[in-house]
């Protein structure tokens, strides 16, 4: 077949997307297996400590790995660029006939999937341990309070992880783009992105006032033992700035990918 007569598709097809995602998920260069392993070991350790430390302490401690996930998301976002450039793999990725934002997008998707998996693992462990506690306290009906808040809480958690990973990926892209003092420029870019993000999310938020507020239910326990009663109170979170913040992050992601594709030398 003549070289010129060959169909030459560009962009991600389903198969290309699958291959890239599989590469991101199975690559052992990330810290994800460590995060997952530490989380699993921690939860299993807490199960063994339950008789000694009591269900209350164990249930609370089971949530600790959640605190690691935002830091991991930032690290993974940063590494999603750094590892490719340091390992000379950027030459492979940047010569693919695919707009680079699509490659970067798959990387972020992999990070979010891994973060979601770890979050589910922690939440599941905490729930199992907390259920035990609730049974011991003979408090019933708490699930009815938690359940309606779960979608909104998960959404907030997701927005936080998405923004952190994108800002970190952007900082790493800036580092690769400038020929000198990359680290310093990346640090400034991060500070600037944070400041600008705060400003613009508020401003963009006005455009999204029509988006319904996120509603969470707060709960406090009054009384003890069989006399314990729940007091519920609503927590309303303005969705406008959240949407604005997400749009800003989307823009940052696009700029970062464009920098790598059109300005960063390999």
């Amino acid at each position, binding site marked *: *077949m*003549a*070289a*010129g007569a*060959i*169909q*030459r*598709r*560009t*962009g991600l097809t389903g*198969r*290309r997307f699958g*291959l890239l995602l599989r*590469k991101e998920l*199975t*690559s*052992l*260069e990330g810290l994800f297996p460590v995060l997952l392993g530490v989380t699993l070991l921690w939860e299993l350790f807490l199960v063994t400590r339950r008789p000694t430390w009591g269900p209350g302490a164990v249930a609370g401690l089971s949530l600790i790995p959640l605190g690691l996930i935002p830091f991991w998301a930032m690290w993974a976002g940063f590494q999603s660029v750094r590892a490719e450039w340091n*390992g*000379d*793999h*950027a*030459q*492979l990725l*940047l*010569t*693919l*006939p*695919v*707009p680079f934002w699509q490659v970067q997008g798959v990387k972020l998707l992999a990070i979010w999937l891994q973060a979601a998996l770890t979050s589910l693992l922690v939440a599941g462990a905490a729930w199992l341990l907390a259920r035990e506690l609730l049974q011991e306290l003979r408090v019933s009906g708490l699930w009815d309070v938690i359940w309606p808040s779960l979608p909104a809480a998960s959404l907030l958690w997701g927005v936080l992880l998405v923004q952190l990973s994108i800002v970190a990926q952007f900082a790493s892209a800036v580092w690769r783009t400038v*020929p*000198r003092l990359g680290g310093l420029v990346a640090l400034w870019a991060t500070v600037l992105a944070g400041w600008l993000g705060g400003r613009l999310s508020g401003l963009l938020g006005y455009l999204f006032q029509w988006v319904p507020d996120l509603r969470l239910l707060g709960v406090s326990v009054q009384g003890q033992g069989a006399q314990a009663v729940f007091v519920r109170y609503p927590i309303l979170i303005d969705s406008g700035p959240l949407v604005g913040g997400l749009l800003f992050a989307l823009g940052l992601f696009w700029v970062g990918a464009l920098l790598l594709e*059109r*300005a*960063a*030398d*390999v």
Partner: protein
Amino acid sequence: MDERRPLATEPEADGRGAPADGEGRPVLEVRDLVKRYPGAEALNGVSLTLPRGTVLGLLGPNGSGKSTLLKSIAGLVHPDEGEVRVEGLPVGTATKARVAYLPEVDPYYRWMRVAQVLEWTATFYDDWEPDRAEELLQFMNLRRDQKVGGLSKGQRARLRLVVTLARNAPLLLLDEPLSGIDLASRARIIRGLIGQFRGGEQSLIISTHEVAEVEGFLERVVFLERGRIRLEGEAEALRVKHGSLQALFEEVFA
């Protein structure tokens, strides 16, 4: 060499779209290319045109700008001035589907197996030819189940050749393809290169400072020095005049 004629078509700036028609159109046009790095000027006003079906040798010592020029064509380095067009298209996503680039470094992941590297390339490039890849794999003495991390430097260099040559791309860019390959195997690999190259359909730029090994294969040569074209011409004419390209290389860069 700088013809400065207007470009026949104006495809979209980001490189999308179909290549311009016309069999007579050069596969590659480089015009007034300048690339500066902090403290160094890697390319300084390089212009060249590559007719379809030509084998061009990009010759020069280390640091002459050969790799930077090839990377600019592949879209890995972004020129400060000038322009590059592949089949009439500015460098971008569309030209990446038309250029098979062999880098000097190892771009593959160490955890990948040879089969995964081939699958990767086959998935992303529509001009992949699986039969040709199998043939090349055997020729280069590589097995599909070998892990990239377990390959020797020479084997990794051969794998890069397999991946590049198994594509039926209009333009092949080979950056120091023999680097890392032992002396005993080089002649055989050059024979393989000649055997797989499809003159007429494909054009090839081979960058090297080891001229003697490839000179019989070259049709045109460009000598680069400090980012500038020092000399260019038809290989055969230069061979007749100077005895060999190797002799000319030594004369130019002595």
